[in-house]
């Protein structure tokens, strides 16, 4: 049985870590871009960001004051048992959000969309978002938080099968150019592309692709991995760098996730995870131990399954008889 207090502690600590420490994979990706960047202004911006991340870690202060819309992605092992049930887990995550907002501090960004009411703690109706997934043959819970700004850099479009890869490339360029001007997307970014699914899942897949996969990770489908590399190169050939200055640093990495979609359609979403790509994950084990990391390991083979059955689920059902 995993204690509720351990879940609250893990959820609080990942908020702190995400806000302050830039993930190593993203830092490495930006440092490689600095080596290739030739624009004076673009180089100055990238070097300033590296100094900023060092200052954040040294001072234990948030790397960016826009601590975004703090939210959670929770992966629950199929054999995990939690004290108080899953409603208690959600309460722990809301409590951790409020506590971290005061202590780190995070900016209390969350307001009612119409009345602009705020509770100064980033908690409210449907906030923080909590997305759930499951993992077979596991008795732990993974709690990931992502702090992502919310205003610029995302778009959705219903394309059709006949639009093909050309259509995806055009829409990808449109989004990066529209939001790249003046650097509204806070590039260079990890760009997530969702292709397929229903419209809402298309958005979700792209969002999760940019927020929950690390720089250097490739889609297991080799043809999709090739498209990821092609789109990365396309973005970096726009001629635009950070802040929309002349440069070549636009896309640190591109991640594509797909979902089976309507036979007549090819919905596409594009999302940019910014120069403060903040994510942190805690694994809370059945014995109460907590291990922290920066790779959410969200897209497991189980998440991307194509079949009806999954071997361990079948065995479990057989043993019930």
């Amino acid at each position, binding site marked *: 049985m995993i204690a509720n207090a351990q879940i609250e502690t893990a959820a609080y600590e990942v908020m702190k870590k995400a*806000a302050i420490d830039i993930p190593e994979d993203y830092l490495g990706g930006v440092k490689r871009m600095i080596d290739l960047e030739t624009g*004076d*202004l673009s*180089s*100055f*911006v990238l*070097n*300033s*960001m590296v*100094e*900023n991340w060092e*200052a954040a870690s040294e*001072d234990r*202060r*948030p*790397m*960016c*004051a*826009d601590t975004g819309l703090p939210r959670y992605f929770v992966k629950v092992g199929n054999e995990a048992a939690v004290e108080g049930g899953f409603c208690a887990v959600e309460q722990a995550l809301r409590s951790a959000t409020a506590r971290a907002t*005061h*202590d*780190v*501090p*995070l*900016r*209390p*960004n969350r307001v009612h969309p119409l009345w602009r009411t*705020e509770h*100064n703690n980033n908690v409210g109706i449907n906030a923080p978002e909590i997305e759930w997934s499951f993992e077979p043959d596991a008795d732990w819970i993974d709690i990931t938080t992502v702090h992502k700004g919310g205003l610029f850099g995302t778009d959705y*479009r219903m*394309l*059709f099968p*006949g*639009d093909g890869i*050309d*259509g995806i*490339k*055009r829409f990808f*360029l*449109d989004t990066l*150019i*529209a939001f790249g*001007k*003046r*650097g*509204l997307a*806070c590039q260079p970014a990890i760009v997530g592309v969702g292709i397929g699914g229903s419209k809402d899942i298309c958005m979700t897949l792209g969002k999760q692709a940019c927020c929950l996969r690390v720089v250097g990770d490739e889609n297991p489908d080799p043809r999709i991995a090739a498209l990821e590399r092609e789109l990365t190169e*396309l973005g970096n*050939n*726009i*001629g*635009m760098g*950070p*802040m*929309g*200055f*002349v440069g070549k640093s636009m896309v640190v990495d591109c991640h594509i996730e797909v979902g089976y979609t309507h036979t007549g359609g090819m919905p596409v979403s594009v999302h940019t995870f*910014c*120069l*403060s790509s903040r994510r942190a994950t805690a694994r809370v084990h059945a014995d109460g131990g907590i291990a922290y990391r920066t790779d959410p390991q969200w897209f497991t083979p189980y998440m991307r399954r194509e079949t009806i059955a999954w071997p361990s689920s079948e065995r479990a059902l057989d043993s019930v008889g």
Partner: protein
Amino acid sequence: MAEQRTRLRQRRLSLPASAEAIAELAPGDVVYLTGVVYTAREGVYQRIVVDREPLPMSDIAAISNANFHCSPAAAPDDRGGYTIGGVTATASFRFSKYMAEWLDLTGTRIVIGKGGMSAADYQNVMAPRGAVYLTTVGYGTGALLGRGVKGVEAVHWLDELGIAQAMWFFRVENFGPFIVDSDVAGNSLFQSEGERVNEGIEALYAGLKPPALARYGETDDRREELL
């Protein structure tokens, strides 16, 4: 703190900044500020510019002439003061409609924010009043800027507007880096850089056929900005 080596020109200004010091700034210069800066965004503009409430002090320009489009990550420190964690700017183009009256009412001559305003705003509103625009870098050098904030001099309308929209007066030292976007002649770095980037955009789309279903939209000209 040691600043990085760069070919860009670096400038240090004391606040309130003199007209002469402001006139020396050129697009692309890197700037660090010492003195007092204050935050004001839509909540404050609504009160002062639209609702015509009085400013919280009689001679704000004597304290500072630098308006930062910022919401700090701030929290009460349980000792009656505030902890300022990270400090970053928010996108300024949304506030350009308030700028003419705001500059007149407050004597603001340095506007600091994210991403600048349109070249027309610089030529019609900012430059005629001797005001320049500095952009934050990145975006999101929140920790570097947070280091530059040495204390909170005052905060106004905290209860009414909340932490994000309140009017904060920060005492700052070597506060930066910022990059000069517009100068007193109304030249814009974002505009000139954008024009250079635009030269290559058409070629990117060569050979990519347009989608079957078009969309209503204000523009398909990708050289244009959407502000």
